[in-house]
């Protein structure tokens, strides 16, 4: 007796188009970046998949395909383990209106047998699958993006008003390594805004308090504490190991110091600053946009730049600005969207308005222009506490 299934499968095989693994390999090598859909189950995917393939288990195909492949004319190659499920999947896609669908005969086992390259994905724990499930659902993040975040290293300058919300959200997002530079201890007056710290941790080092908060939120995060004041001698070594710097320093010397070292090392800085009800956010990305010195060649005199200690700050304001910094850091790590490079976002809490300023590189910038005198060798000789100005080029040069 011929089973109904056998007949159904034969009918479907006749009505769809099939290609062999060699044809798929040629297509991959052509550089045309074909859309490849893996319709197997998770356990099979984890053993390895065709490079660049989208993972959409057969059971989710109808629900997810239109989000991931909106253009119905795009050629779509579907594979499974041996070519059966992919045939049914191809049929479904044709019924949904996809006009160029190919089922890969022999599936992944034929692919592997032919000796073609495959990728073994990161193995997620059951807990991670749940923890990051909302990220996995966003095409711009997905499993690949989440893996990138877990492999990323972000340095927070300051575990204070800006560093607190930025740190918490970066940890929640699964940024795998978070470094924190801060030499202060938690003070009761910090707690109006520095949400990393708690009343029972008053008096303890901020780095330690931050570590406790971040690892309690997400044990995947490795916290590296730098319990020091940054100096021009130490900064290059501290910054060297990180992908993105989130600057929440509370003083000008540190801001110029971080800027100059980041320019030398080519590292992006997500900068935030706050004053009472006003906040600023921007991204300084060496080579692509201006640096801090392009905007402000020198710091203002003290009477024009009172700190939060002297002038006060609305407690929730650094929350808004620090979270915008976290968003920008994640965009940089994932290379998605349009980072705030060459743009400064101003937030006025009282009027509830955002303004955008367009800023350009200064062709004569003392830090990032070709005429800069700054080098990895001489940065350590500059005393930023004394003066944030860089040495000017002498006539003899």
């Amino acid at each position, binding site marked *: 007796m011929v089973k109904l299934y056998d007949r159904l499968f034969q009918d479907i095989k006749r009505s769809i188009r099939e290609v062999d693994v060699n044809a798929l390999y040629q297509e991959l090598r052509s550089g045309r970046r074909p859309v490849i859909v893996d319709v197997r189950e998770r356990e099979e995917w984890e053993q390895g998949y065709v490079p660049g393939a989208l993972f959409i288990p057969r059971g989710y195909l109808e629900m997810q395909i239109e989000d991931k492949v909106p253009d119905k004319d795009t050629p779509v190659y579907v594979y499974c383990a041996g070519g059966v499920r992919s045939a049914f999947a191809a049929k479904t896609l044709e019924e949904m209106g996809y006009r160029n669908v190919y089922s890969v005969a022999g599936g992944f086992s034929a692919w592997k047998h032919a000796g073609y390259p495959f990728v073994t994905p990161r193995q997620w724990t059951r807990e991670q699958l749940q923890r990051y499930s909302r990220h996995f659902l966003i095409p711009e993040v997905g499993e690949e993006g989440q893996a990138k975040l877990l492999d990323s290293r972000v340095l927070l*300058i*300051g575990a*204070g*008003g*800006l*560093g607190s919300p930025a740190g918490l959200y970066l940890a929640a997002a699964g940024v795998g390594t978070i470094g924190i530079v801060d030499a202060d201890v938690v003070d009761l007056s*910090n707690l109006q805004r*520095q949400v990393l710290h708690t009343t029972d941790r008053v008096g303890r080092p901020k780095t330690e308090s931050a570590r406790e908060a971040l690892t309690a939120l997400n044990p995947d995060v490795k916290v590296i504490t730098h319990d020091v004041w940054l100096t021009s001698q130490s900064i290059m070594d501290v910054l060297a190991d990180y992908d993105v710097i989130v*600057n*929440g*320093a*509370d*003083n*000008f010397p540190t*801001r110029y110091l971080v800027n100059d070292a980041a320019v030398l090392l080519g590292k992006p800085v997500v900068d*935030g*600053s*706050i*004053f*009472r*009800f*006003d906040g*600023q956010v921007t991204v300084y990305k060496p080579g692509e946009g201006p640096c801090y010195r392009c*905007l*402000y*060649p*020198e*710091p*203002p005199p003290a009477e*024009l*730049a*009172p*700190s*939060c200690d002297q*002038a006060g*700050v609305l407690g929730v304001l*650094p929350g808004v600005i620090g979270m915008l910094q976290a968003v920008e850091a994640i965009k940089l790590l994932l290379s998605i969207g349009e980072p705030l490079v060459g743009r*400064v976002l*101003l937030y*006025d809490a*009282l*009027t509830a308005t955002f*303004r*955008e*300023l*367009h*800023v*350009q590189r*200064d062709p004569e910038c003392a830090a990032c222009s070709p005429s800069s005198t700054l080098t990895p060798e001489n940065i350590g000789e500059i005393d930023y506490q004394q003066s944030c100005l860089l040495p000017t080029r002498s006539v003899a040069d």
Partner: protein
Amino acid sequence: MAVTVLIPAPLRRFTNEQASVQVEAGTVSEALAKLDAQFPGIRDRICEPDGRLRRFVSVFVNGRDVRSLEGLDTPLREGDEVGIIPAMAGGR
């Protein structure tokens, strides 16, 4: 030309805490002069004695840095917004 000058928080002690001030001006430098006539002393916080912009202040017309336009001579039109943005360092 009626234009709006946005006053940054650290300079609002000059403007009776007003966050923006309307002035009649045809260029950025005229706007700053008018502002100083209303609120004496504020211009010195923005410009050097020789008239150039101080190096820790940026001035924008409708979100564009005047350094990328015509500097303090940048012409203004009715309704333009002149932003004065000083460097801020607060983070904690």
